[in-house]
């Protein structure tokens, strides 16, 4: 059969199934019955992105199917093939939505639809290339081992893997760890589940790319040029799968299959390759994905995909716990003569000598030297340790400085992982990422308890104190330059962050020092110097030089931003912000929600809904994305009165920022325990209850001028 005919037939079948499901649902629940997916502000996102119309109930689903029918043209041209491919994906999305009417249909088996919050979480790593690509693997591999090997190959490169069909059972059979946090995401069994992968692409385009829903052409250009996904489809193929494949190819995602008979080949788009062991290389090449190779000499995998891995007590070989036993991590600048490059020393016993499951102390000091090294960079490097050590398969790291906790799994230990390998990883990553300023590097790993204590108290703590003093003196007023950050522009082409000492990037990942270091490391890179000049309004934090930079780096999309206002030209966001704040008119205040928070806010919107108000480089007065750390800043919406406007945030977030926020409130307004005055979900999820609470507590926001 001709390729186009296969696509047309597959499209017809999927469409018929969707129609049948919608009709059956209408018969059962009536037209007005709501449909959709959990925790998304984009309803049926693929359909919404393509058409600009939201499907929220069965009646609209029915109308949607009518519209899809018009896309199903049947000319012998690729245009018809593509349209039918998209029509297949949209039909599948509607079909999937009907399955969600009575709750999560995948509960206990697989993950199903992805939430907006998860997509936003993927934002930063996708932008930075930490997630180089997104693999969508469909159907069962020839053998369980081949399934495991293929998934593992992508995962160990940091790729995000989505699974559709029987491969999920194969991985279950092999006891393979799956889940969003390890970047192996089983969607569901039916081929219609592929729609959830399309939904991720569509939402990425709307969230980060500011693609207007319904702007088909821009959507396709965005996914084609920026969303680095590809499909691996195991044979035997069938019409529906090929029809979905046509949709994938339309969006720019090549399909690799081992079914050598069913379809012809299409260069760089539909690639037939019988040897599954070559799929990884073939797929990455087909999607033009380059893997940054960090060759680290350790006996376990090293990849960003393992960053979210959790090691439970029972799986743990050994633990280092800074909260109980003196531990610390530190970067120190030294003279070149004091350093022997790539010297890794373990001072004290190796892991073999620790009792299984025991709690211990550890100190590791990374000593660096370089002509362009500055002591300000020490903390920048240090903040990376968390992510680097977490990338080791079988190692979990939390905290920072002298409050670290590290677990090494039994599996990693059995594979040969030892304390010296911490040194190897730190050495390799420092040299890899900071080679512009670090010429020489050596690592000392102290497992000797007495030595670790000594390092903590005699060397590290005084260093931290000195640094804090320096950081405390770093204010927006005390420096002459700010920095742009356009790290996100690969994904969010018109967004520019302005990073100041008191306002870190909204993703939470780029502080002023980070930006400074990035600028030193890559003078033509994402962080460019803005010399603080041409004050327009100090209260708002409006500067001519800032506006000029924003204009230039947004390619004219943005004219002006202020540093301290959320009402007047607020700073834009790419979409990967940690938190979003929005005005709460009853109390003259603002509510803040963080990405992890899944519940309702007194604004009547969830985090995904709030988040969808902004992002993609768009200015929405009254809404602003920001980093967690910014909440305690004296500059947080300083133009509108500052932190005393904060009336609500989720409990967990409140606890995280309490210490610093209370200190700032004390300093600015003389208020003690300010966070006690701030509402959370246990107190109120609606404005009336919140208002009553705030009145009772005498929250200062109530006495302020209205914001609008």
């Amino acid at each position, binding site marked *: 059969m*001709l390729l*186009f005919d296969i696509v047309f037939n597959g499209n017809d079948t999927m469409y018929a199934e969707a129609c049948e499901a919608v009709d059956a649902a209408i018969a059962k629940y009536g037209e007005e019955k709501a449909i959709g997916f959990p925790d998304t502000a984009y309803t049926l996102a693929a359909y919404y992105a393509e058409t600009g119309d939201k499907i929220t109930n069965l009646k609209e689903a029915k109308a949607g199917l009518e519209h899809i029918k018009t896309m199903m043209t049947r000319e*012998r041209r690729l245009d018809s093939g593509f349209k039918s491919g998209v029509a297949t994906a949209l039909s599948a999305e509607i079909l999937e939505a009907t399955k969600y009417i009575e709750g999560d249909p995948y509960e206990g088996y697989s993950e199903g639809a992805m939430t907006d919050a998860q997509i936003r979480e993927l934002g930063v790593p996708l932008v930075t290339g930490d997630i180089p690509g997104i693999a969508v693997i469909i159907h069962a591999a020839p053998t369980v081992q081949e399934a495991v090997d293929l998934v593992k190959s992508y995962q160990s490169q940091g790729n995000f893997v989505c699974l559709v069909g029987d491969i999920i059972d194969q991985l279950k059979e092999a006891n393979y760890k799956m889940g969003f946090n390890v970047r192996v995401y089983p969607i569901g069994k039916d081929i219609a589940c592929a729609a959830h992968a399309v939904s991720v692409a569509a939402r990425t385009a709307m969230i980060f790319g500011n693609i207007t829903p319904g702007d088909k052409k821009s959507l396709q250009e965005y996914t084609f040029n920026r969303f680095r996904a590809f499909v691996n489809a195991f044979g035997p193929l069938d019409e529906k799968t090929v029809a979905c494949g046509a949709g994938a190819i339309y969006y720019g995602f090549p399909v690799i299959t081992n079914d050598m008979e069913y379809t012809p080949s299409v*260069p760089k788009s539909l690639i*037939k*390759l019988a040897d599954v062991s070559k799929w990884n290389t073939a797929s990455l*090449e087909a999607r033009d994905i380059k893997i940054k190779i960090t060759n680290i000499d350790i006996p376990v995998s090293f990849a960003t995909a393992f960053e979210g891995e959790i090691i439970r007590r029972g799986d743990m070989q050994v633990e280092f716990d800074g909260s109980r036993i003196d531990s610390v991590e530190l970067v120190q600048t030294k003279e070149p003569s004091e350093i022997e490059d790539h010297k890794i020393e373990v001072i004290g016993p190796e892991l073999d000598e620790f009792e299984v499951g025991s709690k211990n102390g550890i100190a590791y000091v990374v000593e660096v030297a370089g002509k362009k090294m500055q002591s300000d960079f020490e903390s920048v490097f240090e903040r990376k340790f968390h992510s680097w050590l977490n990338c080791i398969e079988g190692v979990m790291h939390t905290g920072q400085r002298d409050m670290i906790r590290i677990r090494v799994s039994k599996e990693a230990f059995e594979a040969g992982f030892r304390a010296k390998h911490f040194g190897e990883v730190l050495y390799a990553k420092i040299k890899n990422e900071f080679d512009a300023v670090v010429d020489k590097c050596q690592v000392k790993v102290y497992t000797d308890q007495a030595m670790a204590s000594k390092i903590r108290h005699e060397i590290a703590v005084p260093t931290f104190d000195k640094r804090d003093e320096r950081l405390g003196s770093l204010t927006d007023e005390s420096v002459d330059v700010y920095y742009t950050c356009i790290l996100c522009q690969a994904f969010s082409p018109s967004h520019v962050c302005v990073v100041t000492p008191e306002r870190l990037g909204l993703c939470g990942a780029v502080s002023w020092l980070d930006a400074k270091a990035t600028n030193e490391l890559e003078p033509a890179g994402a962080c460019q110097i803005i010399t603080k000049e041409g004050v327009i309004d100090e209260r708002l934090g409006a500067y001519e030089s800032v506006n000029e930079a924003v204009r230039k780096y947004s390619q004219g999309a943005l004219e002006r931003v202020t540093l301290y206002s959320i009402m007047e030209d607020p700073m834009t966001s790419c979409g990967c912000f940690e938190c979003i704040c929005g005005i709460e008119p009853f109390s003259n205040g603002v509510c803040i929600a963080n990405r992890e928070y899944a519940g309702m806010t007194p604004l009547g919107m969830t985090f995904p809904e709030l988040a969808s108000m902004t992002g993609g480089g768009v200015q929405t007065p009254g809404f602003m994305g920001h980093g967690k750390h910014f909440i305690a800043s004296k500059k947080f919406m300083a133009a509108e009165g500052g932190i005393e406007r904060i009336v609500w945030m989720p409990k967990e977030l409140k606890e995280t920022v309490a210490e610093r926020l209370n200190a700032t409130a004390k300093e600015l307004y003389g208020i003690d325990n300010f966070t006690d005055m701030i509402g959370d979900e246990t107190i109120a999820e609606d404005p009336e209850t919140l208002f009553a609470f705030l009145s009772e507590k005498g929250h200062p926001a109530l006495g302020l001028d209205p914001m609008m």
Partner: protein
Amino acid sequence: MSEFKLTTVEEMEAATNRLLETGAKVGADSWQMRVKNQTPHCKFGEEGMCCRICTMGPCRITKKAPRGICGCDVHGIVGRNFLRFTAGGSATHSDHGREICHTLHEASADGNYKVKDEAKLMKLAAEFGVETEGRDIYDVAHEVAEVGLLEYGKPFGTQVFLKRAPEHTQEIWKREEIEPRAIDREVSCSLHMTHMGCSSKPEALIRQALRSGLSDGWGGSMMGTEFSDVLFGTPHEIETEANLGVMVAENVNIVVHGHDPSLSEMICEYADSPEMIAYAKEMGAKGITVSGVCCTSNEVAMRRGIPMAGNFLQQENVVLTGACEAIVVDVQCIFPALGPLSKCFHTKFVTTSPIAQMPDSDFIRFNAHTAGENAKAIVKMAIENFKNRDPELVHIPDMKQKAYVGFSVEEIERKLDGVTNSQVDETGTMMPLVDCVKSGVLRGAVAMVGCNNPKVRPDAAHISLMKKLIANDIILVVSGCSAQAAAKAGLMDKRAKDLCGAGLKRVCELADIPPVLHMGSCVDISRMMVLAARIAKDSGWNISQIPLVGCAPEWMSEKAVSIGNYVVATGIDTYLGVEPYATGSSEVDGLLKGGLKDWVEACYTVEHDIEKLGDLMIEKIEEKREALGI
């Protein structure tokens, strides 16, 4: 980047009309006026039934006088005229090829001409059976040139390049007795056959027309192409611009025109030298701009990115800008009108070849030994002429488009390699293209070539056909004045992908190409033959089975008929927008438009309705797909 928009034929015509106003001011003649004077054309001539081969006539065939004085009927007369027309074209192309052989023979390490593409020379040496082991490349080059020159007059055997064709095609040529022998012999034989009292049988005459055409396409032209590549480099993708707006008012403008790159290459070389640029500044100009017209333009655009001022029917326009210091010509397609026209302006009309000598021109005889000096003298002459401009008359239409050119077979192969997958595919093949066609992503290809002809609204047929074809996922390979029409319109800008169907658009994006591929000058149609042969070999299809057709919607010259004959004889159905002078004979006409199919698996289709011509090509392509089951 400004928004991309094609330049329309209407806009081009408006620009021409503005230039003609300048012409009227200075009393210049124009082809537009001469067309009026020459129409209606002689019907006997147009239908090919006027015989002036001996002095018993001229004889012309009417109902009342169905035979000439010698008794030759209309079929014999039309057939003979058709063969002579072909022989003229074949001789012209092939003689161009021969000139290049001579230039290669003159090449030396420290001379005016050097070997630029050594790898190609070595490949040719192997094909020609020239020993290369341990030899100086110039020794090899000279011997290859000699063997090449022998192709023109070798007493025995057939053309060496025929071996490049697929077996099946070679078998057809053998079976039909149209394998070309020595190139000159086919021309002589054609003239002999058409002499008074020789052949009058249409089949024999047309068979020889195919053979003479093949001696051009798989002989003289192919050598012209290949040896030019050896001397001046095999073209690779390069960015340039097209249309009159490439001329720069503040600069000395030198326009090269004709076909043979030997002269224009040297002019470009010298115009780019610091010495000449300094001299131009001394003379009051800001710099020097070399641009081109016709196929010389295609040659230097493909290899150096020299901008294209225009195609055949725009040659007078360059002078009408009032800003052309010198129009320097070599051979073929040069209007004798340029002589008198240049006298209306300060423009120097410089002829350089003994082959093309014209009144009212400065003749600077150009040859390989003195090429450098000649070129320098011409550039200097142009610079010194800058001061003679009449600023009142200067008007350069602000009209140009970006174009990516230089798609030799080698470059196409490189682009195709770019979409292969190292885990799956071999490189160095045409398979990615074949796969695109097999899967239906591309429906097929059209090789569009040829001239402008006032009988067709100039450029309109080229451009409208191309737009129609690319919208139908049909990729174009083009050459000659057709290529320039595409470039002027903007169809060689990569942004033209947005005018394509979804399939071709995707191919353009993935392979990083414009939808219309510039393969070179008119001799470079030989590149298209090599391309077709490579596709046939890689796909396992016969050339005639490939969803590929040829098209010359605005053709006018003898060369075009020679080309048409070798394209058809290679198995590629060919679509024309202008009738050959053959409609007077139902037999000849019938052969060309149908009978040839039995011989070579392809024939001509002529359709004046350009819209319909496009539909017919698409139908044919779909018909070929169906036959292949794809």
